[in-house]
Structures are given as C-alpha cells and as structure tokens.
C-alpha cells in the first residue's frame, strides 16, 4: 500500500525532521487559531501553544490519516481551551467594536460581490455571534474541516446533536447576514 504525503511527513516528523513537522503544523494552525480566537478570544495564543506542546508529546501515539490528524489536534485544542477558560474563571465579555462590515457595499448584485463582502475576521466575528454550541460546531465543521463524526467526538456529543446544531447555526448565520445592520461582535465574544 503506497504511503501518502501525510504519512511520509508524519513518519519524518516522528524521527525528528523539523521541516516535516512544520508542514504538519501549517496544515492545521491557521484554522486552529481561527477556532480558538473565536471561542476563546485572548486565550487563543496560549491555548494553541499548549495544544502543540501536547501534540509534540503525543506524536508517536497518533494513528490515522490527514483528516484524523486534524480532528486529533482540534480535540486536544478544545480540551486545552476548556481548561484555560476554567482557569481564567471568566466568560467572554462582549466588547463593542467597530462594525466589521463597514465599507462593505450593499448591493443587489450579491453573486458578483459576495467574494468581497466578508473578510476572514468579519466572518469569524459573525460566527461568534451564534450560541456557543452552534458556533463551535460551525467552526469545527466549516473552518476546521471535521466531519460530523469527528466533530461529535471532539465535542463529546451525538452526531445527531451536531447535525442539529450545524443546521441551526447556518440558519442563524443567514438571518444575521440578512439583517440590515450587521454588527458582529469581536472574536471571542460568543454567547454561552
């Protein structure tokens, strides 16, 4: 059975190859930071560092493909985030910020301008307006790229509950976008 690029990179990283580890890191870190910054706000960088520390320590124990690799890293990250939030003993505080969507032209030609409507930060800010469970499901599924089963395992929920939360989150996001004045909150201000 031929080995995939991911398998070769993983094997090289296990043997101490920094370049291979860097590739593995870059394949996950951007989406991981988006998830953490949306759900944890200022805790994101510290939680991400703790996450990779755990990943490095457990690198030899991981078994799976690239999809499983992402799910494994996100699962670790979520556990670290929960720990960090407990240590901080605080909940995300709503912060009034400038409207992310300022400057976004309101036009009827949605199809032609949709690519320019949202920046990544603005999109994450809108997702952050969702209830925490829906926001987390949307982030894990559409940003992290996890499927229903992996998301359910990461959150400790049933796949059916994940599907319901995803459906409701997408519906709520569509409602938010349709509102005349979209005032997304800053990242990390999701409602609990």
């Amino acid at each position, binding site marked *: 059975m031929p080995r995939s690029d991911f398998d070769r990179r993983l094997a090289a990283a296990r043997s101490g190859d920094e370049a291979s580890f860097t590739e593995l890191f870059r394949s996950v870190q951007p989406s991981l930071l988006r998830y953490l910054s949306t759900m944890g706000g200022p805790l994101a960088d510290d939680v991400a560092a703790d996450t990779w520390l755990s990943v490095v320590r457990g690198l030899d124990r991981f078994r799976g493909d690239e999809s499983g690799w992402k799910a494994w890293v996100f699962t670790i990250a979520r556990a670290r985030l929960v720990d960090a939030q407990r240590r901080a003993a605080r909940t995300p505080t709503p912060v009034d910020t400038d409207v992310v969507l300022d400057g976004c032209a309101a036009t009827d030609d949605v199809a032609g301008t949709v690519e320019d409507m949202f920046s990544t930060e603005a999109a994450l800010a809108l997702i952050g307006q969702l209830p925490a469970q829906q926001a987390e499901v949307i982030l894990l599924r559409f940003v992290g790229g996890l499927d229903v089963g992996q998301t359910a395992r990461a959150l400790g929920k049933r796949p059916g509950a994940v599907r319901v939360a*995803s459906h409701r989150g997408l519906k709520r996001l569509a409602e938010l976008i349709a509102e005349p004045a979209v005032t997304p909150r800053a990242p990390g201000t999701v409602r609990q």
Partner: protein
Amino acid sequence: MLTRYARKDQEPVTDPRLASLLDAAAAPPEPGPASGEAAALAAFRSSSVAAQRRFRMHSPTTPLKSLAVAAASAGLLLTGGIAAANAGALPGAAQDTARTLLGSIGVDVPGADEHSAGHADNRGRSEQAPPTGDKADGADPESANSHGTTVSEVARSDESEGAEKGQAVSEAARTNGQAGQHGHPQAPEQSASGSDQGQAPAPAPADEGTGGASSDHAGVVTPNDGGTGTADDASADNGGAASINGTDRAGTASGGRSAAGSDNRP
C-alpha cells in the same frame, strides 16, 4: 462556489452570502510562517532532544565500559572468594567446594573441618554411642520374663499339693524375684548348669558349696555347684522336710529345670 460545502456530509449552502461568509472563515492562510510556529518548533526540538537522550540511555553505546565494569566486578568477587577460602572463612559446604576446585589448580586451602580437631567427623553416629540407662546396669529382661515362667511352672507342677505346693510357689517367687531385683541375671543360668552338673556323680563341688550360707540361700549364692548338692546338704542338716524344700528351691532357681533337679534327689 455554492456547492463547496456540499461535500462529505455537510449540508449544501444555497445562500450565496452565507457561502461567502463560510468561504471567508475558512480562507487559506497567507503563505509563510503561521502564528505560534516558533513556539511549536521549540517544543518539537526539545521533545526530539529528550527522545534522543532517552534513546541513548537505553542503547548500548559504551559496551567496552560495561565490559570493563563487569570484568572488574567479577575479578573482585573472585579475589574475595579465594581470600575467604584461604582463611577458611567460608561456610562448610562452600569451603569444601573451594578446596576441591582450588586444589585442582594447585592452590591449597584448608577444608571445612580443618580447625575442628576431628570433632566434626564424630558427629551423628548413634550406633557408636555407649549404652546408657537401665540397659547398662539393670536386670536382664529375659531373666525377669523367665521368673514368671518359673513361678508359673511351679504352680502347675503336680509334685506337691496343698500347703507344700503353696510354699514351693512362694519360695520360687520370692527367690527369683530377689535375684532379679539385685541384678544377678546369671544366677538362674548358673543354677541350671549346676542342675546339669548335679546329675554327675562327683560330689566334690557340692562339698565345697556347703558353706553356712548355702542353707539359707540355696538358689542364689551357690555359685557353680548346682542346687541339688546344696539341697542335699541342707536336707542332711535339717531333716526330711527341709530337704524337700531345698530341692524345690534349687530346682526353681535353676531356670525351669527343677524336674531334673528333683529327679536327682537321693
């Protein structure tokens, strides 16, 4: 574009603005180092170094050093063992083994019993132990058994009846009982041989045995000359009744040969 999220098990997103939002949220990162990459690499390096250090600890990287340590330990143990064997300080079995092994290569070391003056060789042989207790100076059990047999035979004898028989039994029991208690197991045998000798016509030993004591202790103190002769002497001094008693007493004391003794009466 709108079907981007219809892959896998994800719900298809038909709203173009919602699709745009999700695209923006999952947009590819800018090329180059990601945030936190330096910290992750530092953790990775430290973990790799620690793993290599652990590998070195478990790997046989210094076989010569290990061999040298093992050889030194073995040499020290051997030297100490030989020194202890030479001083005779090893336990008995180990000292004997060391003596055998070292003797085969020409090294003489003392044995386990070298300093015991031979005591160790005299242990544990019960058959060599001297006789002790009642067996050494007590009465012969066979004599005690024969006493009962003698008394029983006198009691069953038809030679006398009534008071005479009772007296004969009493005399037999008393006489032999005293002999056993005083530790003279040879007396019945001597009397028996005397009884046999009594059948011989030679009277001289009987004459020698007619000392004053023989009339009172005919079956005990008469050494070798037979009860018959003593009985005869006693009967000569004391009349017919005494002769009968003496004959019976001598026969009783002769170890079950009283019939022969009685027959020898004149």
